[in-house]
């Protein structure tokens, strides 16, 4: 199980090969890669800037992965989140899961990325042709999070 927060890009094939090699029982590998889009609505994205809360972001990811391990039978998890300035088409985030069976690998991968978006302290600032804007959590991300029945204070809802 590994967590990395880094400015450098990652090699998806190398990451999956390492995860696959972690156990001879791996029967299913699932990966999600988040990429920088080229348009935000009608506005062309020039770049995005990502920052995180050092210390808390690592702890939050560890907690999310521990919760995934409690819910599904997993053989390995790899999570990479990039920070700094990224351009359209670049990779932002990787979540990869290994399990004996695909059901566990699929569900855990989706759970981890949904949970990450609502509880891990990362912030995204978009630079478009219209200017600069810090993004708010999307309603659609909150709805995806709610499906997993997680009872905790997240970084997106109202703090009242």
């Amino acid at each position, binding site marked *: 199980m590994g967590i990395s927060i880094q400015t450098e890009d990652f090699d998806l094939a190398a990451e999956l090969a390492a995860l696959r090699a972690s156990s001879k029982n791996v029967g299913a590998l699932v990966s999600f890669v988040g990429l920088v889009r080229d348009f935000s609505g009608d506005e062309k994205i020039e770049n995005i800037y990502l920052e995180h809360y050092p210390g*808390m972001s690592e702890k939050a990811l560890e907690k999310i992965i521990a919760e995934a391990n409690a819910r599904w039978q997993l053989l390995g998890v790899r999570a990479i989140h990039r920070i700094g300035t990224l351009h359209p088409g670049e990779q932002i985030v990787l979540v990869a899961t290994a399990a004996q069976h695909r059901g566990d690998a699929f569900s855990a991968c989706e759970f981890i990325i949904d949970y990450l978006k609502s509880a891990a302290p990362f*912030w995204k600032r978009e630079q478009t042709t219209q200017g600069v804007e810090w993004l*708010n959590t999307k309603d659609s991300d909150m709805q995806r999070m709610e499906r997993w029945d997680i009872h905790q204070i997240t970084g997106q809802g109202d703090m009242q």
Partner: protein
Amino acid sequence: MKINLLYFGRPRERLNTSSEIVDVPDNIATLGDLLDWLRNRGENWAHELADNRVRCALNQEMSKSTARIRAHDEVAIFSPISGG
């Protein structure tokens, strides 16, 4: 009472502050009190730290405004998270 403050995202940029140590008066007991106290710094602070614009973590755990703060706590103030 001394509190270690950290800022991330929009308020960090707009208030041009990433960290500071503040010495708050004794009547500041909760995160909500702390935010109110910081809003008194001026119009820009009141605007950027409005309830609907910020979230907080207390000692690296997401927290509500009713959470009690103690001396030397680490309080982070940030815009809604948007990673992934």
